[in-house]
């Protein structure tokens, strides 16, 4: 096998240059692909991305299906923590891999008013440091902080800036 290859390379030197240039081109393509994928990941993680959401919990503001939202991850990563009336996308603490779209009602240090099912009355819950209280706009059909309590800011992905689909209902949401 090696003698065959040596004969081939000595008789046809252009094969060597072809193999070399092909290997070089492949290496360049692989490097550029890696750079592109990494930059795309960083862009999604730290600048902004489009998220498709479904579910009835934000109903007057965001429809039940066929939504595409512009999610701004830059603000919470570098500028400020969540504030009142921000619509945020957060990770569901009970279901790994699922996300929530809710509105921030109370931030850290405030007292949240919540209906207690056992005593049938309103009780006050203090939102601890580094946490936010999120609730859906559709109060009757939403699983949110009234079920699982305040969630940590670490679980909040970003703030929703606009709805870009359906195109007829495009609108800024902040």
């Amino acid at each position: 096998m090696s003698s065959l290859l040596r004969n081939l390379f000595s008789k046809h030197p252009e094969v060597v240059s072809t193999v070399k240039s092909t290997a070089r081109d492949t290496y360049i393509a692989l490097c550029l692909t890696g750079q592109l994928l990494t930059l795309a990941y960083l862009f999604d993680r730290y600048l902004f991305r489009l998220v498709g959401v479904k579910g009835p919990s934000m109903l007057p503001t965001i429809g039940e299906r066929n939504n595409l939202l512009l999610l701004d991850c830059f603000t919470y990563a570098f500028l400020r923590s969540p504030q009142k009336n921000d619509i945020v996308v957060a990770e569901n603490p009970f279901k790994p891999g699922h996300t929530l779209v809710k509105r921030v009602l109370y931030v850290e240090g405030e007292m949240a008013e919540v209906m207690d099912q056992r005593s049938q009355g309103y009780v006050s819950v203090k939102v601890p440091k580094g946490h936010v209280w999120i609730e859906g706009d559709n109060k009757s059909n939403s699983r949110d902080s009234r079920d699982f309590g305040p969630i940590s800011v670490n679980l909040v992905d970003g703030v929703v800036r606009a709805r870009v689909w359906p195109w007829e209902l495009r609108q800024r949401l902040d």
Partner: protein
Amino acid sequence: MGQYLSHTFFHPQTGHPNLKVLTFNTIILLGIYANQRLFSISLIKDDSMSPYLLNSTFLSDLVWYHKYSPPTEKLRNKIVAVRDPFGKGIIFRRVIAEEHQWVQRMDDGGIIKVPQGHVWIECENPDGRKIDSLSPELNGPISRKHVLGPCERIIWPIWRCTSFSDMNKFSVLFGDKKPRHSQMYTSQQMYDKYGLQ
């Protein structure tokens, strides 16, 4: 400036890309990606994991931990890196129970079922207890979303360089046999013992 940049990335005569610069940039970017998604290092800042992970003024332990763990990975009895739920930072805790398992608390003996998608984490050092499932701030299981991944090994100082699996296997630290953690029961054990389901 533009000419300098173009001569850095491309050969001035032939116009081919400069492979050394290309390789360097790719390695830097892939390193950033690995630090974001795969593994990272962190210094120990308090005494909460004291016999295992030591804190001191100049030579605190430097821990190499994974930043990704598949949701089905068994983390019980492993030391994991956890995102601090009350601020920005990494804390190291031992996982005592995973989802759908039962825990009998060490302090008051209460029995709790860890809900779906949660884990029960505890410090190693009962005297220097910081944020964990027994502390008054958290006082319960924590979401699995906060858990980054298991710790791999201590990489600095050089004389404390140990793998965490070796630390668990060959640990002779606790000769007194006193319980230092809450007791975990699987659902089958709980059913056999108390009839709870």
